[in-house]
């Protein structure tokens, strides 16, 4: 599997990344293609009828919280806004989207 310029551009866009430097682009294409060729060794293994294992254990359960339970993970507004790059009054300020 070889990564072309076109594929790289699509992937960069999907990834929210910009890479313009020619040398860096070439290095990315080369290393990504090499990695993809390597992982093709999985084709040697017969996985007919095997269930994928998304975790190492099948015993994971969702964690639920009771209504009204204290939310120890919550942050006060000021704590959360303290790290913002830019803010407007009580809000995070972002670049125009549309």
């Amino acid at each position, binding site marked *: 599997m070889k990564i072309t310029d076109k594929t790289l551009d699509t992937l960069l866009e*999907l990834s929210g990344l910009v890479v313009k430097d020619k040398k860096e682009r070439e290095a990315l294409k080369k290393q990504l293609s090499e*990695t993809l060729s390597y992982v093709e060794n*999985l084709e040697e293994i017969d*996985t007919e009828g095997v269930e994928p294992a998304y975790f190492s*254990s099948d015993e994971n359960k969702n964690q639920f*919280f009771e209504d009204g339970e204290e939310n120890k*993970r919550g942050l006060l507004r000021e704590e959360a806004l303290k790290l913002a790059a830019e803010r407007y009054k009580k809000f995070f300020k972002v670049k125009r989207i549309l």
Partner: protein
Amino acid sequence: MDILGRSALSLRKSIKEKRVSLKEIYEYFLERIDKYNSLLNAFLTVRNDFTKPEREGYGYGVIASIKDNFCTKGIRTTASSKVLENFVPPYDATVVERLKKSGGVIIGKTNLDAWAHGSSTETSDFGPTKNPWDTTRVPGGSSGGSAAAVAAYLSPVSIGSETAGSVRLPAAWCGVVGFKPTYGRISRYGLIAMASSLDCPGILAWHVEDVAFLLEILAGKDKFDATTVEKPVEKYMAELENYPKRMRIGVPKSYLKVVKKEVEKNIERVARIFEKFGWKVEEMDLMDPKYAISVYTIVQRAEVASNLARYDGIRFGFGRDRFGFEAKKRIILGNFVLSHGYYGRYYEKAQKVRRLIILDFKKAFEKYDLLLAPVVPSEPLKLGEFEKYPFFGEAMDVLNEASSVAGLPAISLPSGVDKNNLPLSFQLIGPSFSEKLLLQVGYKFQKETEFFGMREKLLKKYP
């Protein structure tokens, strides 16, 4: 009082007996950091002012360094990336909270490969950490700062993290003990997420008993990490000496095939020691680790792409333009294997082989109590040498990836030095939740060999 090289537990004892104060010990380590950190670059942030622990609980007297990908309230946490250069978390990771609540103190934050992507600590945006045994070599990674800090005794213990080898490998190359528990034994909450189905906090120390002690403090169910298990935490400390009189240990032949001669010989020497304990050691078959590299690469990239999508520079940290080459490469590959048309061929296929790896280990543990294997194919590489290797050195994790994708616990132990005075090591891999057994066996090995005087040898260089 002689402090150099002592275990956190024995220091804690002296503090409790009031022979020395916690503050004095803390300042002792600060002085060492001041003296040696410019050479080693193990610490990114040092807490120069001693603050008294919240309370004098079970962990009172323990001074630990923490890998800089664990959120620490009020202490800068960078994951060694310029994206988070200014990030001061508003909350503590669960392991940090548990350590603090038990009375432990944090002396500083240690260097790692940026976002824990790597096996050398060279991809850190804040410069590589150097191996204390030979500062022209890498410490291994990604918990390289933690391993170097422990090896040179800049902190008696360190909390690191492992996705596939990131505790075991640097521990091996720095000649200290590295422990990776079962996935779900210690909470990941507040550990900057890399590959969530694999990430696992771990412990590095010179002494096995310190690992057992810290594990008791850190392990256990956490509501904020749904993948932690309800299973009660065992009394690792109290049962440390009760090693089994009879054991069957398997040595995967496929693992010995990929290592250098000297590494293989070292495993044979360790096997002879185990036989002296009355344990049966024999070679056995396990899936070729080259497939685990592929499974790991695909799964890890996919999860990295999802986890690193959150860094937008809006709510905290800087923008995505600050990602280094390695992170960009991994994000892009992750999005590739997850994209329409390739998902089944790469991602799903990898997860199916992952199932086979899990079953392969299950079968092995029907016959063997533990597996004995090398941690890494070669001695520590020179700085910059990684680029010459396939996968840019990631192949150095070939012996850790299978057990990681299967979520298994393992301990990496030092076992002497080679002819160039570089550390040798081995690992024991156990079935899920065999932490107690791994620690018992590690402790027995430590008691019997004293790790061949490695600590004394190294600390002569760092008096």
